[in-house]
């Protein structure tokens, strides 16, 4: 029995793959910016340092636990298939972004909250003594060191969401896994197509980790 592998018939479709990668990166970028921003806001609500109203803490807490205890694919299907029945019709791309934002938002809430709660009390006292208001204390004194502390976990979570975006191909979002599926449906080289897609994903995760580890100190938290 001989197995012949034909990678070339997959690689020759490289424009499709490139388009898929572009979509994957675009989805991830938008989801990261909005999702982490949302996560910071929710972390602020849930943190024990700030005194957000109790009902709001409960709402955010429920949101976080719901998302963290259900699979991403189910969240995605609910948004794309379920919401239209309730009157909200979405394109695959928009549904994917919303699902990724909601998903990343919930996980980053917990991650960032851990960082915020670890703020030494003296830092807040110093900021308060310098007459900074609550928002200034949070954004300028508490958040940057907190982000620095949890950066590795946050980066890992962003990469998890990027890898999770592969599922969005199931609702016809034209990201990388969709491209691979399309290619193999044409030339029946399923194994080769998915191997190549997998290796591309692997490079994307390594690359993204390096990029985010470079970006963080530069833009978000000093050194």
């Amino acid at each position, binding site marked *: 029995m001989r*197995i012949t592998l034909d990678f070339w018939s997959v690689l020759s479709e490289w424009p499709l793959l490139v388009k898929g990668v572009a979509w994957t990166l675009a989805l991830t970028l938008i989801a990261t910016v909005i999702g982490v921003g949302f996560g910071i806001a929710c972390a602020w609500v849930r943190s024990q340092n700030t005194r957000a109203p109790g009902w709001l803490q409960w709402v955010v807490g429920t949101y976080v636990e719901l998302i963290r205890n259900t*699979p991403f694919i189910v969240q995605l299907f609910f948004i794309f298939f379920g919401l239209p029945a309730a009157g909200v019709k979405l394109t695959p791309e928009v549904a994917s972004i919303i699902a990724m934002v909601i998903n990343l938002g919930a996980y980053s809430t917990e991650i960032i909250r851990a960082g915020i709660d670890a703020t030494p009390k003296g830092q807040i006292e110093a900021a308060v003594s310098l007459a900074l208001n609550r928002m200034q204390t949070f954004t300028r004194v508490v958040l940057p060191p907190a982000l620095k502390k949890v950066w590795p976990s946050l980066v890992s979570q962003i990469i998890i969401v990027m890898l999770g975006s592969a599922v969005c191909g199931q609702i016809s979002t034209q990201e990388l896994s969709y491209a691979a599926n399309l290619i193999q449906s044409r030339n029946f080289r399923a194994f080769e197509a*998915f191997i190549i897609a997998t290796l591309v994903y692997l490079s994307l995760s390594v690359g993204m980790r390096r990029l985010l580890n470079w970006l963080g100190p530069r833009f978000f938290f000093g050194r």
Partner: protein
Amino acid sequence: MVEFSVWDILRNLLGAAQWTVYLSLIAFIGGGIVGLLLLILRLSKARGADTFVGGYVQLFQGTPLLMQLFLAYFGIALFGINTSAWVAASVALTLYTSAFLTEIWRGCVAAIPKGQWEASSSLALSFGEQLRHIVLPQAIKIAIPPTVGFLVQVIKGTALASVIGFIELTKAGTMISNATFKPFVVYSCVALMYFVLCFPVSLYAKSLERKMNAVRR
């Protein structure tokens, strides 16, 4: 037009949910066994073991689970073996779980102070004896909360097996949703059932972690 009640939907979903549970258990237990072997291999400091296991972990942690499932499904087929979605999903999820568990456990062993290794080797214990009597017992205690926590990830991971045709909770949800034209209700029920499976495990893992931190204080 046949009217389906929520109870009809739930009943059908429950039937499929048991396959979610079976697959989760197979992946978790199988992955645990493979992960343990990989851990021991790595700790044995055999030549290339660290690189191999490290690469293995990188591979499974740096690629989508969906791709791993596809590769298992089509890869096994390449060998001419007529494979069912069940087998492919079991293999893929077992390997996926083993990679994550071995990495979690490696961290727990690394958390054991070097002094424990030194003290036990000074008492002339062999590597195996050090592991068995000194290091692993302590590491296991630290490892329990994150390991229980990862079970939640495994349960959620089984949902992807639906994509290669395995009929578990998510796949049943898709099918029922197509049959009843009630995607909102159906997927809400699916989400709820996953939540009922996962949330208690999450809570348990959190309480274990709290107990662990309390003890260490």
